[in-house]
């Protein structure tokens, strides 16, 4: 167990401030779901409603088909790791981790075994006797994580559990979290604003913004078929480029360049009602192919304005040769051509990588399967 269903849940604060708006989603049994979104997007509110720490204003939360709205946090058998750690500073690390087990009246021997097991997995064995105040932030966060995971809960809720750790430890603990999830075989919901974490850990990602569900799906889905401009830009680093263009026919769009109109095809088609209207074309910096010279239909030229060396790749900021002189980003993978400032760059906008968004910022290409 357990499967989590949220049905049209709302969170309204003080009668008029909307925290969560009509959110519906399912987290399947044993699934690892990430809730991803910018700060203030409603991620933590959602988590707290699942935990029973916050009242659900409207809608239903079901665990395994049973409504849990009215149950207190203890009755839901969930575990929650807080972003602020919420450690008990008077107790040792050992007692902090053992705390949830003590509430259940588990024998000392079992408590000891379980504390040591989890401490081993999270590299905490050497500091069990210390007090939380003596530890650096990253360690405290791991203790908080250990306390959440030790209970073998039905549902594990993790609220930005890695946010205060340094980069190296983060990657290491990330792998541990995933393996603990698989070992325990429970359902995990993971809140983060870091897409790299969400992508590397989770089976599916749910994207929230302004308390509204933007998209839920696998990483592949979200990366390749974003439903709107927000998702397209939010996922992927650097974010997707957006260029104004005009719909010429249901299966191609045009850009005005110094050499005249350029036509770009895309895979799929748009509703004929869009023909003639100005819309937004999106293309990921990672999916722009850099070629030797122009000529082909789908090739645009531009001037390199900024070159950022990133070690494993270079990120170019290129001023596009369209009438708006818009600046876009292009990622050159390691081993690719090295550009200098003011050099001309030829870019291939391949049809399968082109996304189109209407005025309401919705994706409008109907892909042929």
């Amino acid at each position, binding site marked *: 167990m357990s499967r989590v269903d949220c049905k049209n849940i709302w969170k309204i604060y003080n009668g008029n401030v909307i925290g969560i708006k009509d959110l519906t989603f399912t987290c399947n049994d044993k699934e690892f779901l990430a809730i991803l979104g910018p700060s203030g997007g409603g991620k933590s509110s959602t988590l707290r409603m699942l935990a029973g720490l916050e009242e659900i204003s409207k809608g239903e939360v079901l665990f395994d088909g049973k409504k849990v709205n009215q149950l207190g946090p*203890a009755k839901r058998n969930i575990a929650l790791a807080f972003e602020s750690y919420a450690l*008990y500073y008077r107790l040792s690390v050992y007692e902090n981790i053992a705390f*949830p087990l003590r509430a259940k009246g588990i024998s000392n021997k079992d408590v000891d075994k379980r504390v040591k097991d989890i401490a081993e997995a999270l590299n905490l064995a050497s500091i069990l006797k210390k007090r939380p105040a003596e530890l650096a932030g990253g360690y405290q966060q791991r203790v908080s994580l250990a306390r959440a995971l030790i209970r073998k809960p039905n549902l594990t809720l993790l609220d930005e559990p890695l946010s205060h750790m340094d980069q190296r430890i983060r990657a290491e603990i990330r792998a541990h979290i995933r393996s603990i999830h698989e070992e325990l075989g429970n359902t995990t919901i993971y809140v983060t604003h870091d897409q790299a974490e969400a992508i590397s850990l989770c089976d599916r990602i749910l994207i929230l913004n302004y308390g509204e569900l933007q998209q839920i799906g696998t990483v592949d889905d979200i990366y390749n078929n974003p439903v709107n401009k927000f998702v397209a830009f939010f996922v992927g680093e650097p974010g997707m480029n957006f260029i104004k263009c005009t719909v010429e026919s249901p299966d191609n769009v045009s850009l005005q360049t110094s050499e005249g109109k350029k036509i770009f095809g895309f895979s799929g088609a748009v509703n004929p009602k869009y023909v003639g209207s100005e819309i937004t074309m999106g293309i990921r910096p990672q999916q722009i192919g850099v070629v030797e010279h122009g000529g082909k239909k789908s090739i645009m030229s531009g001037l390199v304005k900024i070159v950022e060396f990133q070690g494993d790749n270079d990120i170019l900021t290129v001023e596009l040769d369209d009438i708006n002189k818009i600046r876009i980003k292009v990622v050159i993978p390691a081993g690719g051509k090295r550009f200098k400032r003011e050099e001309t760059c030829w870019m291939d906008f391949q049809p399968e990588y082109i996304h189109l968004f209407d005025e309401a910022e919705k994706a409008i290409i109907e892909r042929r399967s």
Partner: protein
Amino acid sequence: MIKKKITNEEIGFWIVTIIVLIVVLGPLLWIYLTAFKSASDIFSGSLSKQILFTPTLENFKRLFTEYPFFASLFNTIIISVVSTILVMVISLPAAYSFARWDTGGGHLLFVTISTRMFPGVVAALPFFLLFRNIGLLDTHIGLILLHMYFNVSFATFLLYGFFKDVPVELEQAALIDGYGRIDILRRIVFPLVLPGIAITSAFCMIWSWNEFLFAFLFTRDIARPMTVLISSFWGSIEVQYGTMAAGVAIAILPILIVAWVMQRYIIRGLTFGAVKG
């Protein structure tokens, strides 16, 4: 050896420190010196006699034999201890409720503290009439109730700050772990606010111990606390400095000790906090 140069800042620092010490310690010194002086030494004009004199216990002897000193000391203890305990019984849950659930949306807390904003004497007349009608004048209960009236608001406000400093996540984590509200208060919250409870009770106790105005107006004989007894040495015919100083010397001793012991807590009370970024 390198000679350390004394800077202007250091000179300034010591001048200010000495002034503060004189202002704070001067009266204390006067009280303790006077308490051990004979009447002739107290009124002696020579400056040397102010410091160099033959100590005597005659003031204390008079205080203990001719006046009901121990009875009034006992009254003071009863009134301050009982009122402090009752204040804490009321203020702790009230402050917790204000801090956690914002009971009354801030207005109620303000109303509570506003009872401390007007001069106490304003409340004296209505209380006097009320107490006279229900027979609470010159009773321990009467004075305890009055002290509670003043200290509950103050203690609630002070404790509110301490409860507010306890991160709500700590309680939520314990709730999720399966602990009940009472257990959480006992095992998580109270240990964290203990310094706050200690300081608050100390303040209430000190206030109640030193309180004079209401004690003077509302007691005559049976419930008369020490502050009123000591003031009675200032008569219309003569001022008995020696006996008065002896009484004060004993009366302020517990407060000095409490303040000394509480120092550590006051500093801890100001700096504790459980969640760090």
